[in-house]
């Protein structure tokens, strides 16, 4: 599925708790985005003049049809700061859909979706699609944050009937501590039950490293959605190298990933 570059306009900028916001966009023309897989992403750039040259990568949160999509973001630096201030009607340019997403949910396997921070969107989309196509029990969300405000869009999972395991560092909701504690417990449970599981994770790099080790130690299929600095998003700059084991020492976050098999990642 080739990607396209196209103009979009903001339809809505919805503030959530914890500084998160959801941006909904409308494309100026139909684009092949509705079929985007969870983990695939869009490169977005605003009317930023010459100071900020490069577009920013955002996982596709949802693309209901070939003219609409949304993302979930949080202010990190200069680009996201400008995006947080966007209002309906404001223009951006987009390149999408890019990258290779997570393996699809399927009957007989429980996918444990381990999310942290702005890593939620691909797993949110994975849950949405899985609930619809395979059934809500094919996925479970394990979701960690610093506090209650960090955990957003939970109502969607409830609506889809997807089970959630929450963890906060301050204990304000769910288990106190890191989400990886919940993950270990869930893997134990699966082992005890003889359940077939896979790990799908997206979030801050320290969390992904931990998930990777847990997944490898438990010898369970583990997929990580990685973030690297990107200039292009479609394999042109070779900037987004990911160190891997394999025939070559690097593969590319944007075109070979962002989802990689944990065994492959050279961490």
């Amino acid at each position, binding site marked *: 599925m*080739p990607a*396209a*570059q196209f103009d979009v306009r903001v339809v809505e900028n919805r503030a959530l708790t914890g500084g998160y916001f959801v941006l909904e966009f409308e494309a100026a023309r139909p684009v092949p985005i509705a079929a985007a897989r969870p983990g695939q992403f869009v490169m977005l750039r605003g009317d930023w003049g010459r100071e900020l040259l490069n577009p920013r990568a955002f996982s596709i949160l949802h693309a209901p049809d070939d003219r609409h999509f949304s993302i979930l973001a949080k202010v990190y630096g200069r680009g996201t700061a400008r995006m947080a201030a966007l209002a309906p009607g404001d223009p951006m340019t987009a390149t999408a859909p890019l990258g290779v997403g997570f393996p699809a949910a399927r009957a007989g396997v429980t996918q444990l979706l381990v999310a942290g921070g702005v890593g939620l969107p691909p797993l949110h989309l994975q849950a949405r699609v899985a609930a619809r196509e395979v059934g809500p029990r094919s996925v479970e969300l394990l979701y960690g944050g610093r506090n209650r405000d960090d955990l957003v869009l939970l109502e969607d999972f409830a609506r889809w009937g997807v089970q959630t395991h929450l963890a906060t560092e301050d204990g304000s909701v769910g288990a106190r501590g890191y989400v990886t504690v919940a993950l270990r417990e869930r893997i134990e449970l699966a082992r005890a039950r003889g359940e077939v599981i896979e790990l799908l994770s997206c979030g801050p790099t320290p969390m992904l490293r931990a998930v990777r080790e847990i997944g490898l130690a438990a010898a369970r299929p583990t997929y990580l959605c990685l973030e690297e600095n990107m*200039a292009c998003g*479609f*394999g*042109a*700059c070779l900037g987004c190298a990911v*160190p891997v084991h394999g025939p070559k*020492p690097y593969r590319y976050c944007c075109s070979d990933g962002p989802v990689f098999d944990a065994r492959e990642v050279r961490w």
Partner: protein
Amino acid sequence: MNMHESTDANSRAVELNCSFGHLPLKTPLLAASGCFAYAEPFAQFVDLRLLGGISTKGISPLPRHGNPLPRICETASGMLNSIGLENVGVDAFLRDKLPLLRELGVSVWVNFFGTDFETYIECARALGGADGIDVLEMNISCPNIKKGGIEFGTVPEVAHRLTRACVDVTDTPIVVKLSPNAGDIVGMAAAVKEAGACGVSLINTITGMAIDVRRRRPRIATTYGGLSGPAIKPIGLRMVHQVARALPGFPICGMGGILSGEDALEYLMAGAHCVQVGTACFAEPGAIVRITEELRGLMGELNIATVADAIGCLEALPPEVEYRAPR
């Protein structure tokens, strides 16, 4: 005076056909080396036949895997990269990449480099023999390879010897891509001209650095990277102008920070015969096609009928009324 609209009638009359020395070009706008890969990733976004030409990612005799990450970061109106000249190597290039390029009917510039005299020559010989390559663009300014590389790009005598050695092993015209890190860009250009280069490309990236103060680390794994983008345009323009003035008629391919038709025209007026667009292609894969249309429109508006009319047409400012100090 800014922000004019282009008049359609005038821009229809504009002729973008041009030439770089003996080499014909459909337009003066090429894709810059390292910023267009081997063109494939762009095919989904634009009609590649609309380009004037494509300079490939730099090719070395053997495949190279590139540098550790992070390899890129953004700076004010620019970016740093330290890709490490990752490439598929000559053999894979000729086998897997050249065929697509050859079919496009645009000028194919194969950027290449070695790590020492022998590998440069080896590369020039291997590529020079291949069909469908219009120019060998010899990159002597690899800020990101460690071994000795610096001298090729900064010492005129060394550049002369290297160029001569490569010119001797191939009939394909060699354009030498110069480094802005050289103290004496005119001396470098003169040296490679003298050695038989059919032109020069300038500028490559400028060595730079950025620091993440929170992590107390460089933002690029190799500490230094190459600075590109609009930030360096004034430096690129200056070097093109210096070389154009010093070596009239010697073909120059200008680049550094071109984002618009106006930027491209600045380079032509400074004396470039054609230009390359690099960093702009990342944010906007269709950038070169847009820039081509902007250039056409702007030339029409300014009544510049051909690219040749634009090249080096810069005039000095009229002198001031003379000052006489009061006695």
